[in-house]
């Protein structure tokens, strides 16, 4: 988007954005906490992890400035780290989930 406009941009709008993200994160935490006490069957874990991922994404994109990062390589490092994490979790779980003897 607008990289050079950062200094004038930084005067008012980021504060509004930071506080909106903060409110969103608190609301998400409240929803996670309340949803855990409702019987949703298999979906309890899905809701909890879905909201956690949404919160983590908000923190990374807006508080850690991945979204507006002026250095493109930052995004590459983040995506690479997530790729290897998913490789670790995904391959391990496909192994354990498909063992008929355990």
């Amino acid at each position, binding site marked *: 988007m607008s990289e050079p406009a950062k200094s004038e941009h*930084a005067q008012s709008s980021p504060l509004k954005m930071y506080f909106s993200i903060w409110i969103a994160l608190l609301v998400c935490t409240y929803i996670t906490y309340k949803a855990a006490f409702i019987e949703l069957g298999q979906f309890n874990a899905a809701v909890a992890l879905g909201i956690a991922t949404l919160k983590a994404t908000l923190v990374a994109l807006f508080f850690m400035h991945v979204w507006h990062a002026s*250095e493109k390589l930052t995004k590459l490092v983040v995506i690479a780290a997530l790729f290897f994490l998913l490789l670790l979790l995904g391959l391990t779980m496909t192994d354990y989930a498909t063992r008929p003897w355990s």
Partner: protein
Amino acid sequence: MPDSTVIGLHHEEEHRPDLLHHFAEPQQQRDAASLGMWVFLATEIMFFGGLFCAYLVYRRWYFGDFAAASKSIDATLGATNTAVLICSSLTVVLAVWAAQTARRTLLLGSLAITMLLGLTFLGIKGIEYKDKFEEHHVPGASFSFNNVPIPGHPGQYADPRHAQLFFSLYFVMTGLHALHMIIGLGIFLWLFTMAWKGRFTPDYHTPVEIGGLYWHFVDIVWIYLFPLLYLIDRHP
């Protein structure tokens, strides 16, 4: 790249002590520093990732025992700590913004509140650990988890050995996270003294930015630890 000659750059260097000679401009220096921090955070993701992986495998195997053990932890304390960390993440972005825009009072205030919230988190964590010690839920010789019903399965009781596995993972994961918080508090204490001495300017505030990235990462780890450890199977 700047159009100045090599000699011109050397002259400029003398006027800008915070700009290292191999960088063309402050923005490039800041980008390089945060990229390096992200590479470190990638290693941290894999470091915690191994523990999350172990947790997922055992949770699948011993789901009922894990749910029973999870239910014995105070979820309200966990939720409160999540809110505390989210508030501290807000004060961290405010500190970075204050450093960027040369607001000294806001910078010092945000750094101080961040440390206070970090200490609050550790205090609540301490209460939680104390409860676990008193209930003999700490893995070891005095561990005891007998006749605890498995949620949703009347008449079935959790296997203490499997519950002990849950508490081992609980203490290692939250303990490692708390260690990161303590290191973060050290970093922020240092940032506070540097800010007090007036070392940070809109051109040079890399330490605030880098320290902030670290703090947010520790927050993200907790965002996952909270539902995974505290909220496995809570409904009555």
